[in-house]
């Protein structure tokens, strides 16, 4: 089995990151935007794991960060979905463009 280089992994995470950014900027549905954010977070996770493995295999800092990020992402998703549900109850819509008055 061929050895996977760090460059290939970084390509993957970069691609994942920009797919996430694209999704965040173009989707109007809040749930989809939340999913896009998850993609971005996961691309960061991949980076952490990859750098940890290839550059400092004797340390575990990168893995700890990843676990933190997963935990926080879960909490964030819970909060975000709660917010979205409340917005839906008030506006009958979860389209970001219907919620511009939130700026006030």
């Amino acid at each position, binding site marked *: 089995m061929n050895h996977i280089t760090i460059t290939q992994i970084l390509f993957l995470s970069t691609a994942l990151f920009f797919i996430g950014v694209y999704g965040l*900027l173009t989707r109007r549905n809040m749930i989809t935007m939340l999913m896009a954010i998850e993609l971005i977070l996961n691309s960061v996770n991949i980076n952490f794991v990859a750098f940890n493995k290839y550059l400092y295999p004797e340390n575990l800092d990168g893995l700890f960060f990843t676990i933190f990020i997963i935990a926080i992402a879960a909490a964030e998703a819970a909060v975000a979905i709660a917010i979205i549900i409340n917005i839906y109850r008030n506006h009958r819509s979860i389209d*970001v463009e219907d*919620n511009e008055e939130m700026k006030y």
Partner: protein
Amino acid sequence: MNSYNYIALIPILPFAGFLLLGLFGKRLPEKISGLIGVLFIGIAAVLSLTTAYQYFITDGVINGTYPTLEPIKFTWLQFTSTLSIDMGIMLDPISVMMLVVVTFISLMVHLFSLGYMHGEKRFATYYSHLQLFTFSMLGLVLSGNLFQIYMFWELVGVSSFLLIGYYYDKPSAVAASKKAFIVTRFADLFFLIGILIMGVTADSFDFNTIITTLTSSAFQENYTATFLGFSVLTWALTLIFIGGAGKSAMFPLHIWLPDAMEGPTPVSALIHAATMVVAGVFLVARLFPVFSVTDSGALEIVAYVGIFSALFAAVIACTQTDIKRVLAYSTMSQIGYMMFALGVSDYEHGAGYTSSMFHLFTHAFFKSLLFLGAGSVIHAVHSNEMKDMGGLKKYLPITHITFLIACLAIAGIPPFAGFFSKEGILHAAYATHPAIYYVALITSGITAFYMFRLYYSIFWNKSETHLHDFHGEGPLTMKIPLLILGALSAVAGFIPFAQYISPTNTPQESHFEILFSIAPVLIGVTGIIIATIFYKTANGKAAAFAKSAGGLYRSAYHKFYIDEVYTFVTKKIIFNLIGRPAAWIDRNIVDGLMNAIGNTTITFSASMKDLQSGKVQEYALYFIAGVIGLSMLGIYLWM
């Protein structure tokens, strides 16, 4: 020598009364607040009399002079090693005399007000203001230095403002209080400049140090500073005199005094007759050694302003129909007497100085009596106008008798108080300034005339006056002060004043020449006789005479148009030439600059405003673009 520390209580008591009545007066019933006021002033008056007895009789003359004492003194603000502002109490013959006058008249007015102000809604406020005034006036007379006197001077102005504007729902009273405050404040500006020049020249604000420094011959020989051709010291003294003239209503700063009669009548008796308006005389007397020894120029100004004001006011007083205004102009005229008496006096003999202080003393009694009498009349008639009065002598017997005594006193008829003091003044003027003497002689005739015009118009004239809702002459609290002051106006003249008060603080012989008195008394009697012919019964003689006097009568009736001149100068000249350009600069340049800064910020922020659109994705885009931009920059720099 005994201690004088208890004197600190004399001003502190009214101040405590002011705080007490000012803070809690609204909750106290009228009787109690009146009692507190009278009690506090009463104790202060007793203490003042004790002080006077101790100072003049018990301690008396030491080494040939009455000593100048400073029982309490502490440094308040230290500027340089020599120049500092002190606070404290200074005792010398004139301050002890003023102490007695102020507390005594204040006590009389407090008593009188119990009846006069009965039923007023703001009774306690009135008393607290009276107490504040008494406190300030006592602080003023006890001041040992120019700055302290200036502070209390302003406090006196404020309390006068409060009391004139007591009926604050009456527009004329509000206008009068503002006028009094602004005019005296305007004069005080000059006073302050004078104080500063004086302080720099003598390197002290203390009266004692100033007097010793400025009258020493070493200083006299070396002092050469001049400004516009006059010695700087003359300027300083003139400026200080302007301050005094503002408070003492000397021409041309007198315009506030007649209007100040809008205040309650007892207030006029206290402030605008007996105490505050003589503050200017007191100030000149305080600095009299400097005035007389250093430079006679300023003293000449004092003399001529005084005599002019005396004559000017006396002429106007003959034409006024509001009884309080007659009294106001009469006050101005009498203060003119005191002023020119100082002006004609010299340092060693000081007959003018002594009789000026004497006149201040006697005038305080008979003029406050006249005002309180007028208050009693107004209380009965509910009007200030002569035409509503007449034939009141059977309704107001006590007021009638005491008013007559006061009129005789002011007209200079022996043996009433005013005769002796006025005699001294005329004598002093005759010795040095004959021109002033003759004018003063004529003025005393006019004085007798207008006082008896007032007297007859109130108490005689119409015989069948019918007073509707007449409710007696007023309570006992109103009659007692009248009687006490009446007695004093009759006998105060017999005090050998020269024994106690002279510019050098050494006792002197009172000299009194019976022959000299003939002319003034004759003139006074003539004035009274003319007034009797014109006004004792309602006849047309006075009106006919006024008609024949024509222009003179009209212009005197309109107070020689001084108010109009002031209005013209302020409205037409000052407002147009200074006020409007200043307003333009303020509106266009000062405000313009501020507005320009504000407008720029507004425009800038308006252009920024659209960035906050509420579109979350736009924010994210800006954010990501920013991050990408920054990282590109970082990479570029790193490479």
